């Protein structure tokens, strides 16, 4: 793509990379809903994880027998594998509405439902057992994680945990051809076109930078090294206040569609120059439960014309020059923040990789499709880059696995609040933030 040079003769070519989408597991096309409940997806998850954990347990503690929850004997040390359930006092329960005593219930905090009395229970097909001891901290774990526990049953009927085994990072495949030149991927999320917080000029600045319309040759040379753009959710904010149950006046109807039209104009500019993937987020006009299906292409009449424009699922997984990149628009990590405790978003991300499950709280507190024969959120191959969108602040670090895996964790901040995007170098997986400001402090 040519830069905006007027004086020089040479054209600047944008670098290319090979792209392969790995979203088939997240697309809901062959599923039919036959009235099944969530027990099916929990069974699929337990079965897949247990098979894996059984193979790991033989190396972990080879001399301790493995048994089921029902097979526990008092005082006998053994290993049990099952799904964790966290009993949370403050977790809102639909039955509270029907409780006879209208006692003064403490106001539910929106941001976190933890309580010191929370306790963990392990469950498999045969039964449940309450977990005791101090090894397993209820503040770290959430319902839906499958682990192996070494311990013994106490007289009280609890299982005293002596040690815990998580699945750990999945095996990682080395990219075949390591790129020797710098190629950059830009990650944006939370553009929120149409919201009062978003500044269209800021996004326009970003688009101009990516497409090489800004700056001198050096600047354009840098922009020419951008090979891909990923938009991780919450790209629009639809004025939902207009929807109040009444018929919409025609001027209100056009106001409803303005944010998407605004987004499409800018997306078309990006798509004209560089491949762009757009993922749905919690505020976007897509389905609610995970995995969110791609935004309908008819929302983007302008960008749709370009084959560089791709509407993708959330979660989204793809390979660029053999580098495996996996990420979500943030719902999985945001839900973990409500039901567990961690230092920062990156710590929650690390936990999901070690638990080998993108969204362990589905379907308990995070909506998901009732799959019957698989759990698409299980991480079978460890990505090289793992990103999460719509976070409060930018953060990144490298996570090392026990078998030499290396993952670049990226927490993408909301663009409408911070004006920041994240740029990743495919060559060495180094990451930096790029900020766009339109205010000039005097």
């Amino acid at each position: 793509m040519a830069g905006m040079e007027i004086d020089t003769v040479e054209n600047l070519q944008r670098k290319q990379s090979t792209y392969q989408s790995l979203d088939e597991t997240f697309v809901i096309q062959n599923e039919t809903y036959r009235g099944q409940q969530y027990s099916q997806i929990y069974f699929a998850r337990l079965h897949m994880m247990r098979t894996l954990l059984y193979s790991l347990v033989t190396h972990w503690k080879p001399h301790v027998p493995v048994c089921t929850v029902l097979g526990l004997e008092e005082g006998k040390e053994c290993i049990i594998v099952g799904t964790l359930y966290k009993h949370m006092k403050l977790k809102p329960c639909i039955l509270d509405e029907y409780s006879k005593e209208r006692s003064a219930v403490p106001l539910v905090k929106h941001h976190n439902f933890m309580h010191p009395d929370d306790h963990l229970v392990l469950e498999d097909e045969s039964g449940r057992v309450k977990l005791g001891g101090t090894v397993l901290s209820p503040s770290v774990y959430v319902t839906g994680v499958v682990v192996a526990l070494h311990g013994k049953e106490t007289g009280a009927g609890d299982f005293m945990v002596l040690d815990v085994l998580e699945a750990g990072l999945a095996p990682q495949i080395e990219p075949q051809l390591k790129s020797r030149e710098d190629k950059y991927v830009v990650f944006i999320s939370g553009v929120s076109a149409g919201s009062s917080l978003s500044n269209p000029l800021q996004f326009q600045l970003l688009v101009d930078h990516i497409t090489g319309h800004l700056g001198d040759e050096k600047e354009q040379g840098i922009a020419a090294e951008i090979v891909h753009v990923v938009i991780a959710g919450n790209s629009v904010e639809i004025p939902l206040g207009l929807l109040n149950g009444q018929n919409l006046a025609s001027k209100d109807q056009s106001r409803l569609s303005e944010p998407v039209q605004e987004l499409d104009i800018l997306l078309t500019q990006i798509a004209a120059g560089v491949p762009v993937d757009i993922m749905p987020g919690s505020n976007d006009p897509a389905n609610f439960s995970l995995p969110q299906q791609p935004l309908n292409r008819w929302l983007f009449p302008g960008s749709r014309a370009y084959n560089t424009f791709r509407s993708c699922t959330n979660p989204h997984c793809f390979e660029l020059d053999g580098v495996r990149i996996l990420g979500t628009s943030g719902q999985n990590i945001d839900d973990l923040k409500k039901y567990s405790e961690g230092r920062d978003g990156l710590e929650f991300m690390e936990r999901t990789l070690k638990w080998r499950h993108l969204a362990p709280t589905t379907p308990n507190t995070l909506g998901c499709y009732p799959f019957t024969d698989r759990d698409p959120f299980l991480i079978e191959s460890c990505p090289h880059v793992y990103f999460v969108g719509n976070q409060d602040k930018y953060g990144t670090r490298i996570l090392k696995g026990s078998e030499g895996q290396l993952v670049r964790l990226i927490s993408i901040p909301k663009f409408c609040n911070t004006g920041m995007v994240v740029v990743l170098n495919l060559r060495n997986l180094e990451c930096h933030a790029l900020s766009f400001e339109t205010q000039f402090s005097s």
Partner: protein
Amino acid sequence: MATASSNIKGFYRQKKKESGIRKPTSTKSDKSSLLHAATLGSDFTPPSALVSHGSPDLKDDYDKNEDVLRQFDMNSAYGPCLGMSRLARWERAQRLGLNPPKEIEDLLKGTKVRSECLWDGCI
């Protein structure tokens, strides 16, 4: 997981000695080997009187094939049975490497049997 005791047998009227779902016994009849096949892979033997004899049994004991399929439904090793057709559940068990007995697949694909699990329409 109660074992069958004589008072349960007295409570649920059984027409013939051979009717009703039984735990696998040591007799080497065809039926018990099929039943054994259906419960393979599970440590949990279901209770023997699963069949409700509420309605008068105007015909003879229901199909022994249905018997076998109900054992398959109740076998927790293959996961929950509600919300899936029996064949879909068998195929899922196959895909997950659980080695469900071939006889079940043959019954479901070949003979005229109920395609849905025993709880279908009741829950």
